């Protein structure tokens, strides 16, 4: 798919811009802090429902203004035109419109615009906390299956309820404690119902990603060692997240949920005392991890700088591949990554880009990007970002787009 036109009004450093984008590579060139990343962030937010930089939508709205608008015009692989509009207000729910129609839940907008973003922060998938790897998997899943985002939000809601109940139980004694305990089971069952869906989906995602990640890593790294992906489940090691051809039938099937539910139920029972003592849910997808190994060693603690970058990049290229398997080919967003790579890896990434429908690249130094493509200069003037498309003597005025509010 392709993003044909992007309009921003009062988003981050943009007051009003509209930019038409062609197929292939577009390079946004500008010094740091001019607003390049803000543009990719807006596209990422529209596509996935969250920004790679902040948790809530509020900070996306330009400082001092009340409402920001992100408007995307997309052309699908089949040539259909679709629109995705976001109206982001400070202190209220973001309003989303798909093809001009309001949608009630963010999940309904999932898949309209598909992106794979690679940014310097993504090295944290390899080296950071488990939460980074969970988010990586969940982002892949939310884009691969629209229903996943809904399952995730149901789970998160049930988790907040159960944690609250555990906190209440911790402070109670006697009969009021018994009364509160009497409803703990139903929340445990809610977590199991939604949690097994998420765990099964993540294991399936790992099984699907494993091959491509290994292949891309061998392409990118200096020493082509095998990459291992294992799901580390808080419900116990017998929840099998390994790519074990014997247990998975050698395929990339979604695992049975019944054994996962059983393992969760057993672990919940075993840890109930600890949970009520700490006032915290200790079992479920929110406590799980994706173990990454390079050769025999855990990537988190033992990878070199180059290995960590190669693996992070391999994970992202594999994401592109598994997303493209089901539905439209995603748009690739590369945020300031060429500067972080050595010459060899730059060349290899550039070679991969040749296979993508549309790539939006940001760079401070043009020469860092060994790619041909349209160029747009990005510059901050009077606190507002201006975009100047550079090719074919086009008028440098594509910045005053018509963004109706």
């Amino acid at each position: 798919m392709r993003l044909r036109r992007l309009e921003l009004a009062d988003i981050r450093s943009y007051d009003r811009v509209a930019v038409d984008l062609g197929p292939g590579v577009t390079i946004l060139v500008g010094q740091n802090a001019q607003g390049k990343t803000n543009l990719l962030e807006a596209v990422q937010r529209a596509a996935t429902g969250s920004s790679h930089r902040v948790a809530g939508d509020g900070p996306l709205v330009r400082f001092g203004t009340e409402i920001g608008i992100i408007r995307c015009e997309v052309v699908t692989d089949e040539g259909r035109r679709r629109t995705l509009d976001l109206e982001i207000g400070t202190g209220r729910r973001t309003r989303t419109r798909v093809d001009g129609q309001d949608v009630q839940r963010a999940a309904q907008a999932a898949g309209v615009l598909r992106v794979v973003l690679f940014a310097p922060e993504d090295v944290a998938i390899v080296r950071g906390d488990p939460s980074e790897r969970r988010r990586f998997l969940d982002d892949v899943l939310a884009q691969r299956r629209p229903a996943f985002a809904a399952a995730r939000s149901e789970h998160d809601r049930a988790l907040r309820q159960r944690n609250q109940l555990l906190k209440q139980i911790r402070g109670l004694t006697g009969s009021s404690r018994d009364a509160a305990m009497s409803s703990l089971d139903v929340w445990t069952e809610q977590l199991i119902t939604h949690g097994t869906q998420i765990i099964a989906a993540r294991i399936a995602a790992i099984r699907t990603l494993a091959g491509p990640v290994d292949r891309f890593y061998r392409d990118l790294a200096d020493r082509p060692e095998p990459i291992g992906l294992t799901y580390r489940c808080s419900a116990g090691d017998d929840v099998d997240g390994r790519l074990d051809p014997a247990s998975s039938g050698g395929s990339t099937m979604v695992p049975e949920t019944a054994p996962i539910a059983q393992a969760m139920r057993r672990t919940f029972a075993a840890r109930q005392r600890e949970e009520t003592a700490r006032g915290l849910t200790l079992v479920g997808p929110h406590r799980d991890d994706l173990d990454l190994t390079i050769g025999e060693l855990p990537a988190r603690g033992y990878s070199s700088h180059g290995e960590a970058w190669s693996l992070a990049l391999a994970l992202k290229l594999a994401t592109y591949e598994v997303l493209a398997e089901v539905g439209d080919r995603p748009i690739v967003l590369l945020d300031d990554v060429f500067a972080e790579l050595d010459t060899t890896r730059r060349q290899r990434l550039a070679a991969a880009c040749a296979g993508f429908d549309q790539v939006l690249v940001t760079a401070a130094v043009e020469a860092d990007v060994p790619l041909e493509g349209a160029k747009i200069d990005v510059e901050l003037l009077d606190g507002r970002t201006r975009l100047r498309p550079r090719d074919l003597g086009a008028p440098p005025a594509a910045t005053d787009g018509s963004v109706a509010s």
Partner: protein
Amino acid sequence: MYEGAVQDLIDELGRLPGVGPKSAQRIAFHLLQTENTDAQRLADAITTVKATIRFCTRCWNIAEAEECRICRDTRRDGSVLCVVEEPRDVVAIERTREFQGRYHVLGGAISPIDGIGPDDLHLKELVARLDAEPVDELILAMNPNVEGEATASYLSRLLAPLGVRVTRLASGLPVGGDLDYADEVTLGRAFSGRRDIP
């Protein structure tokens, strides 16, 4: 902080569901600037509703008498009870015209975040009704969200030993939503396709 009476009004408004401190302030100042008659009409409406409307002593639906219109209607089938969270769910289900039985309104759903536990719902009253009335089937029509599901599963455990048939509205309702968001056709279908809870 404002002068006594204004601050009292802001505090009271701030206690209403969905009204934050900022909105409370805005509403208070709006009321200060409106005509006396308009403000009086609002005050009267609140007083009247509190004086004349109460909850049905049998099903906890909104009633203008001891019992609500539905409980008093002898044509309704007393052998089937539909258990809902709020009076507005009764209205949503009545709109479908699919259901001829009577209701039991719980007054909410289990939600620790909102400080609502099973004891805060009209559960004991429901169990008492099963003793006193010839009920064969209970249809659990909680909202299709995690609180609704948790409440339904708590109820079905509570009711299992009593030997009454318990069914749950069929899925197909929008997940995470409220019953009164569901359109009539979907909600009607959910009724006819209800399933037994094992």
